[in-house]
């Protein structure tokens, strides 16, 4: 469970998140909203990469704290940028992060297959197309199978086939106590398999609901 309590995040005079409160239970959720609605900032706040100006974020019963190694282990985050080392190959990047998370080569190979990155394993990240780099970034984020997976625009620059690979890779987060939060403009792709959705506008919650049926959301706030 992720709980966001009265969260406000301001960058100077710009208020990115405005007194936002919500709870996100286990499952896969879409995070929707126009540009500047606060999706990315909310993901970064949950990851602990940006500090609340006011309010707090509680993840799995503990206040989000980037100093806490246990908390960091529980987060998988792929932001707007890939978070990969451009001069390392895809394989080297994933093996590096695998070794830092204590994930063996078997799981690295699995992540490479899941996102169909086999052809690019020996290609430097800087030489990848934007879409392939995005897939590699998602592979890095879910490599250690984190309890909380945060993906910011994972479908950007992806064709339908590649987008389906990303959805399939995230689908296991529908089971168990894990949470995946996907910020995207491609609502259709997420609605096709997600458990629910959250809509933000101007840093405020507009709607949060679970999909009872495909493509149908029921408002709970």
């Amino acid at each position: 469970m992720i709980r966001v309590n009265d969260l406000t995040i301001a960058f100077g005079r710009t208020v990115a998140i405005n007194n936002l409160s919500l709870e996100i239970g286990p499952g896969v959720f879409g995070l929707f909203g126009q540009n500047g609605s606060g999706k990315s900032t909310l993901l970064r706040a949950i990851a602990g990469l940006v500090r609340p100006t006011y309010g707090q974020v509680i993840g799995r019963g503990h206040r989000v704290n980037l100093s806490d190694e246990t908390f960091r282990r529980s987060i998988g985050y792929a932001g707007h940028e890939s978070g990969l080392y451009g001069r390392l190959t895809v394989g080297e990047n994933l093996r590096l992060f695998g070794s830092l998370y204590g994930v063996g080569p078997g799981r690295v190979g699995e992540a490479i297959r899941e996102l169909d990155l086999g052809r690019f394993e020996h290609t430097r990240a800087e030489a990848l197309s934007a879409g392939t780099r995005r897939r590699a970034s998602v592979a890095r984020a879910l490599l250690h199978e984190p309890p909380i997976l945060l993906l910011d625009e994972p479908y950007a620059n992806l064709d339908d086939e590649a987008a389906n690979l990303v959805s399939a890779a995230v689908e296991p987060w529908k089971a168990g106590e894990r949470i995946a939060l996907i910020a995207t403009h491609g609502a259709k792709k997420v609605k096709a398999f997600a458990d629910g959705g959250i809509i933000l506008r101007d840093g405020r919650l507009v709607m949060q609901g679970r999909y009872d049926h495909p493509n149908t959301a029921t408002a709970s706030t």
Partner: protein
Amino acid sequence: MNAQVVEPGFLSKTMALVRKDVRVEIRARETLLPMMMFAFTVTLLLAFTLPGGPTGGRALRLPAGTLPASDVLAGFLWVTVLFAGLIGAARTFEVEREHAAIEALLLVPLDRSGLFIAKALVNLTYVVALQVILIPAFSLLFDLRLAERSGSMLAVVALVDVGFVVVATTFAALAARTRSRELLLPILSLPALVPIFIAAVELTSTIFAGEPAGSVAGSGWFGVLLAFDVIFTITSIVTFEFVLD
């Protein structure tokens, strides 16, 4: 899908980061090469400007009088190392800035001290690689006969290098997230580096002048360097988390 998580040790994670940086540098050649070029240029200019053979008590004639060449050469050697080293230190976190890899790294379950030690070790590698070429070149060009005093020279170099990379890495991390980081690093770090380099010049001058190893080790500057290294290393490791924050 079932990730077999076998918790790697602190050292294993730290060394993985060191290997990553070295691998990136081997491919990019963006740090060591400019350091070497700077040192090469300065050394070449000095070779054409300064007289050789300072150990024979030769003095440089300056407007205010004379100065032992050993003092002057020790000063030039460490000024070259300082500025070449700062060129490298300024790039400490550049590899992490590309594609926002720093965010991925900040989320990794590794104690921040591991990240600091990894970055300091990489910077140390660059500075040592520079000195492996620079110091013998100085010795040859200015007839310093350092081979006869290699023990005391190595001890001084080791102490200076540790202090230098510890301070430079800490301030490089402080400056890394600012827009004017390349300007900020020298502004922040130079005041802290002054005591190290004064001690370095004093001790190296003694070595260049041909004094015995005992007088180098017994010098108060040696103790200053040692104390500085211990204090700054501990302080940097403990505070690095807040520096990154």
